[in-house]
């Protein structure tokens, strides 16, 4: 490939059967992935699942144990990093400490002997709104500014493929939201292919066209953010992207449209198209915000699942919505989110309630019901908040 080629459009990335084994540890097992040119692709997963390793393989900083890497249809598996039309925004920024900000940004342009490197670097600096720090050293910048310089240093090269390794990790929430929007704008402006790695599900969903959820070195599910959220295929995805209520049971009847699962005596109907398994023991789920609370037993109707009665064990107010924990005999604890349309909670702790949701909101998982996680993932912020609240309450009661 020509070194002086200044890319104007993105290239697609294809990983074919890529795996990576470190001595005594498999970081990536069998990764097959195609990212179309010009798209904003997010690789989402908990820390340690192999995201950085995947990026390093694409950048050429790590050699895959098996498999091929293709960029723009060209096999680059054996190409050295500096020969690949790829730039990386490193998790640690890796800004050269002995150069000024502007020299850092011009570095890649100078290496490729592109005309007017300083002018282009200044332009990139404008893009990230940091023109005023051009002559400073990286050490004189705040973490957020360094991150933006790292971004400018990569983007200025117009790489066919831009790799971003948790590029917003060091920013506080507000700046992060702002940078998310900016990044997305920049991507739309320059039309390059972005491969964005993050462990923040909200970030992945707001920014990316396509999200791949990664777990323990493999991709669990891939698709548009809405699709992943509305139709998770595995319990991991159901709980990593937002929260889910999951139940296990046996399929008792099925039709062309739906299957009916017996969950501890409750009849739970799930659309056939939204289920991964259609017979035997299955796991089904529903998102907390899809459930409605009723103080009196609702009248059964077709197209509605009803469970209850249960008892409200916890009510926690979080501004926009209120989260209710409802304990149902046999089912365990179900989480329900309700928008705060009126003042105060709709029901109170200790009250008896019934739950209902539309059949088309349910989903069926690939997982065996026995393997369902008993609790939501620990790193889920909502469950941490709820836990913390409960702790505080017991402390207060004890005092």
């Amino acid at each position, binding site marked *: 490939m020509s070194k002086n080629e200044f890319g104007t459009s993105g290239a697609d990335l294809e990983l074919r059967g890529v795996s990576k084994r470190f001595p005594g540890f498999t970081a990536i097992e069998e990764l097959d992935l195609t990212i179309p040119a010009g798209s904003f692709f997010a690789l989402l997963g908990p820390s340690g699942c192999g995201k950085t390793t995947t990026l390093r393989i694409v950048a050429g900083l790590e050699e895959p144990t098996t498999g091929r890497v293709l960029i723009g249809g060209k096999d680059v598996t054996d190409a050295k990093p*500096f020969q690949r039309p790829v730039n990386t925004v490193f998790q640690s920024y*890796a800004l050269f400490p002995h150069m000024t900000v502007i020299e850092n940004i011009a570095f890649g342009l100078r290496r490729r002997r592109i005309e007017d490197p300083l002018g282009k670097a200044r332009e990139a600096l404008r893009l990230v709104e940091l023109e005023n720090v051009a002559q400073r050293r990286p050490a004189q910048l705040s973490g957020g500014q360094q991150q933006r310089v790292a971004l400018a240093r990569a983007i200025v090269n117009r790489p066919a493929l831009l790799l971003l390794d948790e590029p917003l990790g060091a920013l506080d929430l507000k700046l992060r939201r702002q940078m998310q929007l900016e990044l997305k704008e920049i991507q739309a402006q320059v039309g390059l292919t972005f491969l964005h790695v993050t462990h923040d599900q909200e970030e992945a969903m707001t920014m990316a066209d396509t999200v791949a959820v990664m777990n323990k070195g493999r991709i669990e599910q891939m698709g548009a953010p809405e699709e992943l959220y509305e139709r998770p295929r595995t319990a991991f995805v159901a709980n990593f992207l937002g929260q889910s209520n999951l139940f296990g049971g046996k399929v008792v009847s099925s039709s062309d449209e739906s299957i009916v699962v017996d969950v501890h005596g409750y009849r739970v109907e799930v659309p056939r198209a939204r289920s991964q398994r259609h017979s035997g023991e299955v796991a089904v789920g529903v998102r907390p915000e899809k459930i409605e609370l009723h103080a009196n037993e609702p009248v059964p109707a077709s197209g509605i699942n009803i469970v209850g009665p249960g008892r409200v064990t916890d009510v926690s107010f979080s501004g926009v919505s209120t989260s209710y924990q409802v304990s149902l005999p046999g089912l365990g604890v179900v989480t329900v989110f309700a928008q705060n349309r009126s003042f105060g909670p709709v029901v109170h702790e200790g009250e008896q309630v019934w739950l209902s949701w539309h059949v088309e909101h349910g989903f069926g998982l690939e997982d065996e019901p026995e393997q369902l996680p008993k609790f939501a993932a620990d790193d889920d912020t909502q469950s941490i908040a709820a836990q913390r609240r409960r702790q505080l309450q017991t402390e207060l009661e004890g005092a």
Partner: protein
Amino acid sequence: MAFGAFSSGAAPGVATVQEGPRRKSRVALFLLLPGIAYLALFFLVPLISLLLTSFMAPREFGDIGQFDYAFRWENYVKVVETYLPHILRSFGYAAIATVLALIIGYPLAYFIGVNLRRFPLVQALALVLVIAPFFISFLLRTLAWKQIFADEGPVVGALNALSLMGPGDHITGTPAAVVFGLTYMFIPFMTLPIYTSLERLDLRYVEAGGDLYASPWTTFRTVTLPLSMPGVVSGTLLTFIPASGDYINASRDFLGSTETAMIGNVVETNFLILQNYPAAAALSIILMATILILVGAYVRKSGTEDLV
């Protein structure tokens, strides 16, 4: 490493002291007192004595080696006239030896500091090996080299057998032998400071260089080398300064001959044999001043603010 002190001066503390309340600066002064006293006693006093000596005049009707205090600046003109070749030779040999030691020491330091990172035990062992020559007196080591390079030694024998040397050729007593001895002696002084800066080098910068289209060589030139400059500067200073004043390697008793005599040898002769103390002192002062000027220019040229 002790060499770190050479590159990371005491600047940060000083700045804050000035900003602080006056009482703080008095405390700092008090703490600095032993250091100042030490410098005054062991550096300033001999230096002044040396300066005074360098201007002395021979005592009228006195013996050899008897001098009176005077202001005979002609001493300087005289030694420069007499010993200019030695002065130039000193700095020439020292410069060549410094470059050679850098060429050998840098890759060695890189190998130990970067390639051996994953094997801490091997790394420690390699460092011990670099320092190992210090366990033997350098006089003995230089004598050993003299034996090896002697006319009846193995090297000359082998070269003779290969007809690479004529019957009248020697190795000892040549400038090459002296430069070799200097280089050999100062390789550890070059290697260790460079090692300390390379050992801390964050390899992610090197990866970033590769990611930004720099070939391995370009990455070395634009990233690794500048980041290890503090070590290179320390190492070259630690080599060049003592090498230009060295008088062991160049001496006739070791690897040199009268044709290879350096300032150190001349000072030694003037001081111990000719008993011309003012000449010896004037030469020392010239050596010191020249080194100061050269080093000042060098540090300034390679000078980034984070260097010293």
